[in-house]
C-alpha cells in the first residue's frame, strides 16, 4: 500500500468518527421540532378558538355595552327632560314659595294689625262700658228728674187750671167793670194805662258818653243799655263806681230817650260822691 493510500485511510477513519460523533450529538441533543410545531399549531388553533370566542364575547359585550350606552343615553335624555321638568317645577315651586312667603308676611302683618285693632277695640269696649255705666247712671238721674219734672208738670197743670179758672173769673169781673165804665162814659184804656210805667228789668251797663252843661257839670249821659234790654223812657237807674274794690255810689239818672242798643238819660242827683264819668256802672238792681 502506498503512503497516499495510508493517509487516505487515516483521513477516512477520522472523518468517519467525526460523522459518527456529529450524528450522535444530533441524536443526543436533538429536539422534536415537529411535535413542538404540532403542539404550537394546536396551541395556535386553541388560541384562535379562544380568540374567536373572545371576539364573540367582546362583540356581544360590546353590543351589550353599546345597548347599555344607548339605554343610558336614552335614560340620560329622559333624566335630562325630567331634570328640566323638575327644574321648571322647582322654579315654579320657588315662585310659589316666594308668593307664599309674601302672603305669610302679609297675613302676619294683618294678624298684628288685627291684634292691635283687637286690643284697641277691647280698650274701646272697656271705655264704652265705662261710658255706658256713666250714661246708665245719668239716665237713671234723668229718669228721676223726668219723674220729678212730670210731677212738677202735673202740679203746674193743676196750677194752670186754677189760674185759667181765676183768669176767667177776672175776665168776667173786668168785663163787668168795663161795662160799668162804659155806662158812665169813661174810657179806661187811655187814662189808666197811659200813666202806668212797667218797672225796669234788672240790668247792668256802662256810661258810654257824658255831656256837660255850661258850668261843666254832667247833664246828659249815654249808656250801653237800650230797648233791647227792656228800658223805657222814665226808668231811673243808679250810677256807681268801683274804686280799689269798694263800690262808690254816685247818683241816679232817668231815661229820656232810647234806642235798641243804647239810651240817653238825665242826671238826677248830681255829685253826691263824685262826678259821673265815662265807664261808670249803671244798674237797676239797687
Amino acid at each position, binding site marked *: 500500500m502506498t503512503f497516499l493510500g*495510508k493517509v487516505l*485511510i487515516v483521513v477516512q477513519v477520522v472523518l*468517519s468518527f467525526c460523522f459518527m460523533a456529529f*450524528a450522535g450529538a444530533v*441524536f443526543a441533543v436533538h429536539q422534536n*421540532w415537529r411535535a413542538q410545531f404540532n403542539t404550537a399549531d394546536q396551541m395556535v388553533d386553541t388560541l384562535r378558538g379562544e380568540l374567536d370566542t373572545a371576539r364573540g364575547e367582546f362583540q356581544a359585550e360590546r353590543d351589550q355595552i353599546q345597548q347599555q350606552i344607548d339605554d343610558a343615553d336614552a335614560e340620560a335624555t329622559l333624566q335630562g327632560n325630567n331634570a328640566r321638568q323638575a327644574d321648571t317645577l322647582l322654579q315654579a315651586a320657588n315662585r310659589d314659595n316666594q308668593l307664599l312667603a309674601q302672603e305669610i308676611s302679609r297675613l302676619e302683618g294683618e294678624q298684628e294689625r288685627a291684634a292691635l285693632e283687637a286690643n284697641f277695640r277691647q280698650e274701646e269696649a272697656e271705655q264704652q262700658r265705662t261710658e255706658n255705666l256713666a250714661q246708665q247712671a245719668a239716665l237713671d238721674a234723668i229718669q228721676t228728674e223726668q219723674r220729678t219734672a212730670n210731677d212738677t208738670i202735673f202740679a203746674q197743670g193743676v196750677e194752670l187750671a186754677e189760674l185759667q179758672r181765676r183768669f176767667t173769673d177776672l175776665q168776667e169781673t173786668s168785663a163787668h167793670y168795663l161795662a160799668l165804665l162804659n155806662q158812665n162814659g169813661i174810657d179806661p184804656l187811655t187814662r189808666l194805662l197811659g200813666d202806668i210805667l212797667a218797672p225796669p228789668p234788672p240790668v247792668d251797663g256802662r256810661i258810654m258818653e257824658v255831656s256837660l252843661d255850661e258850668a261843666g257839670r254832667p247833664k246828659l249821659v249815654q249808656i250801653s243799655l237800650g230797648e233791647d234790654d227792656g228800658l223805657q223812657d222814665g226808668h231811673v237807674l243808679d250810677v256807681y263806681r268801683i274804686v280799689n274794690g269798694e263800690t262808690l255810689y254816685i247818683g241816679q239818672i232817668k231815661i229820656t230817650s232810647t234806642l235798641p242798643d243804647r239810651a240817653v238819660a238825665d242826671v238826677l242827683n248830681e255829685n253826691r260822691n263824685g262826678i259821673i264819668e265815662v265807664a261808670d256802672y249803671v244798674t237797676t238792681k239797687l
Partner: protein
Amino acid sequence: MSPQSYESDPQPDVYTGLLFVSVAALITGCVFLILELNNYGWAMPS
C-alpha cells in the same frame, strides 16, 4: 490493472483494521440519522 499474481492473500494489517473501524463509525452515524429521521416521519422539507 496489475497482472494477476498468484501470491497468497496479504495479511490484514492495521489499516485494514482502521477501515473496519471506519465502517463501524459510518454505520453508527447512519443509525443515528435514521433514528433522527424517524422522529420526523421521514418527511422531507419541500
